């Protein structure tokens, strides 16, 4: 099921990770680190100015077993949302 932008906007993440300004692989590493600090089922939101972060986080989620909810672009950065799957 595809999550719409409006639905993504309405989500309140359990943890927000501000990785703006970091280049690859910084945002991915911050996401991995942050995911370890929340329980299964929680949603983390990664802020990134690196345009490849959303596709990287999507690939990482698929590999690890997390639920990639999607991303929205606001004010020059991406908000990437992932639900912890395991």
């Amino acid at each position, binding site marked *: 099921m595809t999550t719409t932008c409006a639905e993504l906007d309405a989500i309140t993440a359990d943890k927000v990770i501000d990785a703006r300004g970091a280049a*690859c692989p*910084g945002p*991915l590493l911050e*996401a*991995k*680190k942050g995911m370890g600090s929340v329980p299964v089922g929680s949603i983390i939101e990664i802020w990134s100015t690196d345009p490849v972060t959303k596709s990287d986080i999507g690939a*990482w989620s698929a*590999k690890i077993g997390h639920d990639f909810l999607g991303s929205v672009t606001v004010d020059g950065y991406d908000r990437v949302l992932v639900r912890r799957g395991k």
Partner: protein
Amino acid sequence: MTDGISLVLFSGTTDKLHAAATIVAGAAAMGRPVNVLLQYWALDAFRADRIETDHGLAYDAMTPGSSRPVAGAAEIPWLETFRMAKELGDVTIQACSGSLETLGFKADRLDGLVDGPCGIASFLMAAEGGQILFI
């Protein structure tokens, strides 16, 4: 075939150390075990008394008209990227015992990121069935 990655890191300039760190950290984040074997100039870069210094750029950077890191080579976060990789994943960093002998120092002079010395046969055994990269 295992999903492990083995990386022979030979080069000791900041740009190549960071390229290696990026692959290692990415693989670690993806849940893939990573084995790194440090040889020669990479090994020298991991000496405890040198690791925090500016390791410069590869010869390629000397080409007239080549691009340069925006903030300079010293600001490229290769060491922090390796540290995060070890913190977040299954990453082993070992020192080639032959290179230690050639360069004339012992493994106890290396930074704590390095797990210890390793012979080539042991490294290749650990690498068997997975991918091997050389930088």
